[in-house]
């Protein structure tokens, strides 16, 4: 049953990949979406079965077959559902279904074959992602890990005829290779150290070991695995691919580059929580990298002008938060933020997709503005998600972000907490800069719309909302142009007003917006009178107490207390006061950020412009993303290129390899110039040499 969750999307991939060309769009898109929904339903049944179990053996295992047997080392292709992977599969299949639904409308302008290709990739991605989170050992996880990387590559390069898109795809793939290489090394070191790759086995073995105070094997393993995570989850120094990955279609950005794949690194650390907990040095590095990335990406996000790029840097920044939490050993908080982030960030990306779609492919927020009254559904959902990510009390982002900041502060890392709170301010500011520039203020989009109005048929990113909007569509009040004859009236309406999201897109947006409001309520902290249900639910997964072995409750309690992070088990009364204070601080910071953005980009638009001119150095630095791409190009890409062309190509390959091959040829032909003098065609010479040979042989035998 468990294996069906990934295998059903895989079936969708097979159908769309091999038959997609012959299927109409409604069938290929509908099938892909339906299969994801089925997968979601199965996931829900499995998770509810999991909920029915007692916490200490809350685990569902399914072994498909034995993959590798070598000596005493065996490795199964096995799936395991526990508290942690339960959260992940719900996010993947649930948000995945919504994004599939959204895509059926968003990609509607594509031809049948391209449409099916898109959905086959999307389904394949879900298959690998589910494999990643359900795998019960490192290698199965790694198969998923590489698989999602492949799908990410395919989907970023979906518009492969566009040079920038295929470049971005290559960049994503190659940058990830660096991380994946480290991940493989980490996995190999795990095999050497523990003779096993099964997560539970490793966790139980590690549990017996003391914490590593100096840099040792565990630190090295975890550090290597974390480098893998920096690649997949876009952290410093390997984050550079994610902003470029926005070349892919917007639903892809929402699914892969916001909600699921990029969180794989966070999940991986959560999965190996016991391992990381025993390597405090690595955890400190994780926390520092996380906090730095959060702040660094936040500052870049402040000045970008491409709606999707702002969101991309925001994603990098939020992932930094998650790693900060992981580095604090507050794994529950990190996964909590992962889970809430999936809702509001997917909603933001899908909302940006709806904006881009209504503006026929325009992504520059300087050419938007005042869209609020034209596309109300998109506006309201986008606003809700922005409020959620900003950390305004009551919405999803508030609970998870505050838990992270509280854990950071409670662990005594005031500097990291300061970076976190500063990032929180930046988050609120750049999100509301985005909201104001896109939806409020004066309308700057008329040129764009007019330019596209008559070329609508050629615009690739523009779906045809009228052609499939149901007559009773509640979601698209503006799109009431005649549903039957969509070609002619569409041209005339374009120049006058914009279309809001058609119903499949609107449905996804509304559900995700509701999620952005409600998702946080599974983890209400103790300080606010809640029970932090999610944290409690996840706790056994991190402490490896649910190893499927019979345990007495006494043992369990002992372990739980022993391994409990401070703040969760320890004095709740004293911490509650601190937590409440911190909450008030971060709420004020969030509101201040929103206020600042409103002041600067809605009320006094000349101030940011003047600031940009006055501090043009800093502005240019941020606008050019700290020139990191240029630095990487100069220090890594160019040297590799030079070594490859001059050293490996012109030196090794041309001179040595080709030299050896051609040399063998020249040698043979050179020798044969001499040798062929013997074959002169004269019968008498042949006879003479034969005679001489016979004489020589005889002479040899006679005088031997």
């Amino acid at each position: 049953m468990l294996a069906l969750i990934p295998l059903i999307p895989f079936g969708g991939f097979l159908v769309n990949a091999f038959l997609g060309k012959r299927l109409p769009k409604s069938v290929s898109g509908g099938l892909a979406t339906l299969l994801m929904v089925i997968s979601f339903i199965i996931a829900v049944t499995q998770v509810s079965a999991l909920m029915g179990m007692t916490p200490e053996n809350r685990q569902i295992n399914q072994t498909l077959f034995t993959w590798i047997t070598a000596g005493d080392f065996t490795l199964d292709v096995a799936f395991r559902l526990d508290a942690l992977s339960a959260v992940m599969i719900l996010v993947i299949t649930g948000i995945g279904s919504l994004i599939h639904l959204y895509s059926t409308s968003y990609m509607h302008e594509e031809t049948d074959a391209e449409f099916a290709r898109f959905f086959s990739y999307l389904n394949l991605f879900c298959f690998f992602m589910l494999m990643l989170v359900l795998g019960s050992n490192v290698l199965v996880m790694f198969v998923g890990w590489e698989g999602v990387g492949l799908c990410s590559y395919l989907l970023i390069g979906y518009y492969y005829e566009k040079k920038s898109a295929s470049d971005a795809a290559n960049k994503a793939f190659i940058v990830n290779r660096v991380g994946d290489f480290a991940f493989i090394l980490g996995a190999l070191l795990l095999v050497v150290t523990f003779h096993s790759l099964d997560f539970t086995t490793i966790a139980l073995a590690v549990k017996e070991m003391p914490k590593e105070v100096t840099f040792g094997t565990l630190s090295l393993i975890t550090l290597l695995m974390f480098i893998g995570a920096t690649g997949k989850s876009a952290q410093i120094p390997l984050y550079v691919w994610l902003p470029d990955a926005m070349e892919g279609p917007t639903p892809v950005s929402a699914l892969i580059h916001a909600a699921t794949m990029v969180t794989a690194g966070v999940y991986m650390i959560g999965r190996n929580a016991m391992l990381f907990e025993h390597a405090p040095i690595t955890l400190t590095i994780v926390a520092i990298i996380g906090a730095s990335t959060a702040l660094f990406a936040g500052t870049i996000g402040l000045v970008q002008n491409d709606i999707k790029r702002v969101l991309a840097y925001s994603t990098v920044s939020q992932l930094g938060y998650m790693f900060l939490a992981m580095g604090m050993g507050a794994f529950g908080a990190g996964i909590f933020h992962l889970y809430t982030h999936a809702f509001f960030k997917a909603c933001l990306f899908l909302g940006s997709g709806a904006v881009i779609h209504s503006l026929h492919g325009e992504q520059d927020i300087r050419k938007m503005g005042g869209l609020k009254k034209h596309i109300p559904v998109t506006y309201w959902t986008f606003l809700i998600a922005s409020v959620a990510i900003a950390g305004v009390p009551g919405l999803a982002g508030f609970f998870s972000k505050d838990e992270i900041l509280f854990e950071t502060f409670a662990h005594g890392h005031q500097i990291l907490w300061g970076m976190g709170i500063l990032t929180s301010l930046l988050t609120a500011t750049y999100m509301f800069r985005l909201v104001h520039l896109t939806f409020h203020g004066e309308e700057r989009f008329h040129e764009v719309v007019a330019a596209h109005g008559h070329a609508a048929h050629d615009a690739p990113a523009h779906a045809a909302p009228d052609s499939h909007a149901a007559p009773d569509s509640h979601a698209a009040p503006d799109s009431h142009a005649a549903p039957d004859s969509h070609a002619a009236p569409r041209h005339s309406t374009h120049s006058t007003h914009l279309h809001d999201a058609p119903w499949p897109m609107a449905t996804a947006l509304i559900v995700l917006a509701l999620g952005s409001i409600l998702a946080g309520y599974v983890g209400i902290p103790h300080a606010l009178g809640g029970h932090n249900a999610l944290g409690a639910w996840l706790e056994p997964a991190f402490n490896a107490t649910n190893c499927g072995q019979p345990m007495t409750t006494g043992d369990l309690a002992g372990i739980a207390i022993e391994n409990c992070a401070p703040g969760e088990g320890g004095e709740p009364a004293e911490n509650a006061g601190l937590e409440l204070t911190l909450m008030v601080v971060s709420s004020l910071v969030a509101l201040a950020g929103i206020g600042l953005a409103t002041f600067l980009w809605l009320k006094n638009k000349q101030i940011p412009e003047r600031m940009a001119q006055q501090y043009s150095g800093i502005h240019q630095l941020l606008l050019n993303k700290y020139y990191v791409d240029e630095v990487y190009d100069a220090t890594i890409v160019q040297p590799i290129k030079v070594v490859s062309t001059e050293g490996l190509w012109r030196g090794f390959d041309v001179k040595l390899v080709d030299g050896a091959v051609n040399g063998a040829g020249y040698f043979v032909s050179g020798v044969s110039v001499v040798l062929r003098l013997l074959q002169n065609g004269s019968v008498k010479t042949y006879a003479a040499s034969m005679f001489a040979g016979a004489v020589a042989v005889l002479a040899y035998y006679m005088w031997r």
Partner: protein
Amino acid sequence: MPIGYYLVLSGLLFSIGAAGVFLRKNLITLLLSVEIMLNAVNLTFVAFGRQLGTNDGQIITFFVMTVAAAEAAVGLALVIGLFRHRESLNPEAFTTLKW
């Protein structure tokens, strides 16, 4: 008569034949020289046959003579064919069969 005489004569004949093959520039003379070499060998066979008191040497000689006859027939036919091509009997005129 000791066998040494026969062998010396045979050796002389063979050398004459070989020298003829290598030195003469006429295809027909070449064939004749080959015949002389064959006959030198025949002489050796017969001499040894007699020395050892068996008939084997004589039997092999008959084989050699038949083969030599066939060889002469084929060889002469080839010589005629070659002559029709090149109007020459010099073996050095026929050196096109090479690289």
